[in-house]
């Protein structure tokens, strides 16, 4: 129990469009049966981090529901456990979380009352596997003040925090969402530091009315603190917009990605919902697709992901789509390059052919008229 865990799950993200309308990014379903936050939570529990705070604020209902019981991630032990902190009114403070640093500062008593020497702070939007103990060991070896987990990405880095390395793994520059990205190495939004250092940095920032962890702490202290980068060389994807969400999900159609996340220990945990097996009726045509529990398939599904409890009608064709939880799709429907929002009901005969941009479909029809 070397470290505390903090998961920053309060943020809104306009670039997620309709997908973030009713839920926090942390609660967005991923890869059929998981939710985004499961990856950070499972990495924490698999790294023997037993005391974890999840800081929530924006649209937390779906996330609260997911975290209602902490037993799925093997928290809920006698020591430690999962703490969900939403903003509260206190004698000294009547604000919402004004930023990531402020969110932690408002819960500074929890940090002060703990005894673990280190803190691992993770954003909630990463899809990855990482043993945080390795980062802590690296942090100790480098005698760093702050260690940032970084990853090399293929796509456009402008949506991320782009880092520049100096000698020996030390980070010399971090540009948050720059206009021009000078490298492909980005911050994964995962930080390790001593608990006491975090407390003092949070107090200093709060005293100066500064609220953002990246801009007001990491970037501001870049010259005075020793900030190192730990390269995460295995799969990492940050869900930052609709395109990355789509691509991250589609990556699970590759056998090596499935092997890495589904077959290789340690595993990723999620809330168990006791749903029946998936069912394929006569004349189904399912090719290169992931199908989750409780789906009933009649039509054609190609290069797609069906999340939990999806019904696909007869003569329906679904290609290159992500169909989220509990969607009902009637007969003779044609969908291509779409993301269908959870609980949608697509009436028989409907057709959505996404060209170029990925379409997001949320249709609230009455299910029982179809």
């Amino acid at each position: 129990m070397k470290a505390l865990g903090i998961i920053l799950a309060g943020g809104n993200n306009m670039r997620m469009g309709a997908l973030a309308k009713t839920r926090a990014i942390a609660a967005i379903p991923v890869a059929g049966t998981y939710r985004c936050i499961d990856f950070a939570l499972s990495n924490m529990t698999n790294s023997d981090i037993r005391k974890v705070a999840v800081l929530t604020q924006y649209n937390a209902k779906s996330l609260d529901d997911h975290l209602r019981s902490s037993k799925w991630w093997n928290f809920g032990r006698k020591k430690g456990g999962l703490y969900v902190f939403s903003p509260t009114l206190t004698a000294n403070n009547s604000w919402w979380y004004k930023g990531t640093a402020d969110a932690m500062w408002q819960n500074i008593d929890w940090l002060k009352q703990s005894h673990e020497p280190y803190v691992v702070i993770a954003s909630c939007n990463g899809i990855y596997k990482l043993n945080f103990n390795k980062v802590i060991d690296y942090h100790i070896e480098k005698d760093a003040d702050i260690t940032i987990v970084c990853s090399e990405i293929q796509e456009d880095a402008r949506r991320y925090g782009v880092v520049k390395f100096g000698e020996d793994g030390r980070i010399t520059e971090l540009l948050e969402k720059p206009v021009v990205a000078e490298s492909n190495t980005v911050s994964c939004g995962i930080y390790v530091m001593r608990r006491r250092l975090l407390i003092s940095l949070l107090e200093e920032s709060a005293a100066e009315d500064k609220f953002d962890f990246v801009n007001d702490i990491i970037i501001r202290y870049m010259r005075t603190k020793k900030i190192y980068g730990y390269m995460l060389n295995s799969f990492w994807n940050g869900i930052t917009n609709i395109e990355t969400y789509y691509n991250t999900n589609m990556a699970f159609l590759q056998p090596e990605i499935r092997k890495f996340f589904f077959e290789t220990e340690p595993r990723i945990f999620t809330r168990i919902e006791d749903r029946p097996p998936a069912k394929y009726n006569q004349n189904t045509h399912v090719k290169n697709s992931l199908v989750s529990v409780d789906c009933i398939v009649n039509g054609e599904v190609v290069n797609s992901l069906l999340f939990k409890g999806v019904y696909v009608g007869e003569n329906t064709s679904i290609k290159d789509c992500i169909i989220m939880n509990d969607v009902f799709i009637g007969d003779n429907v044609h969908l291509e390059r779409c993301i269908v929002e959870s609980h949608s009901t697509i009436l028989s005969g409907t057709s959505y052919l996404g060209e170029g941009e990925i379409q997001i479909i949320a249709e609230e029809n009455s299910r029982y008229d179809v």
Partner: protein
Amino acid sequence: MLLAGGQGSRLGVLTDNAAKPAVSFGAKYRIIDFPLSNCTNSGIDTVGVLTQYQPLILNTHIGIGMPWDLDMNDGGVTVLPPYESVGSSEWYTGTANAIYQNFNYIEHYDPEYVLILSGDHIYKMDYQQMLDFHKEKNADITVACISVPLEEASRFGIMITDETDKITDFEEKPAKPRSTLASMGIYIFRWDVLKSTLEALKTQPNLDFGKHVLPYAKEHDRNLYAYEFSGYWKDVGTLQSYWEANMGLVDIVPEFNLYEEFWPIYTNNDLISPQYISKEAEVNRTIIGDGAEIYGKVHNSVISNHVRIGKNSYIHDSIIMRNAVIGDNCYLEKTIVADNVKIGNNVKIGVGPEVPNVFKPDIYANGIAVLGEGSIVPDNVSIGKNTAISGKTEEADYKDNCLASGEVLIKEGD
């Protein structure tokens, strides 16, 4: 009190390493999930599970009962194996004997009523309704019954009732049944009645509910009532009935529907990832559990969690249980493959003429081939109908790469 200690020998090699209640069913469940989930859904939160035969899988499956919400502060699930005590060390010798040996467990909770269940049937039943019936009739013992076809009635314990559902007589496996009301092996007792009856009969060898307890109670003028249940209830005691019950699940609207939200079936689900159907695969009339990877053709089958089916393989009318791996270019017909089986490439199973099994023609029949838990089948072999295989078989075990219909191949140990 859930009786889960039986071997279920009519399931052949399927119960070599597991008690019958622990056998997989319906792609992601084990048979015991059905009575356990019925308990939870009926609001029964104190359950003793009596185990004896091969309890390992059962014990790990039940654990502390979390999947069924039976991890309670007070009550919950307790696994009750036979134990040694001063002056006696006895196995459970019969259904009622097993309950008698756990008197202290029941006494500890001091209930008004005790529900006796068996762990080897597939059904959804609200025990609360049966208890309401029991109270309403002011019964001492209520026996749950189901109406069966007359020609099958001679396989069951048959209850003869009057117009008030009171049991006037019963017959154990009668040649000429006088009624079609068959006992489901589910009883509600008033605890004081159960206690005094078992106390009186404690010296009876192989003390059994159907054979001894009910006749004794009847003789002593206890009020016995038959509660008629009209839903789906399937005894999966034979390979044929087990196979049929699984196959029934793939119908468009199955007789036994797992997709009803008001009566969920819970199970210990350690695997959560979705299943993958490859671009070469073809799947229809099939149910598939979590984390399976399908590269071949599957038709009319039940595929459990984490099964892998190789390229160009064709599986039909078969049941493949957890973690089984089937290689490339295989052909399986009417085959039951138990947990953790590994089948090589180019293997054919369930082919050839229909020949009765030479050792156990009653068990391995109807053209079904069965592979026991953890079996290994090497590449390029062909296995006939009405066959059974258990253990790590090698090429040398097969004559001309072939196991003819009606044969049994069992390899002991490692």
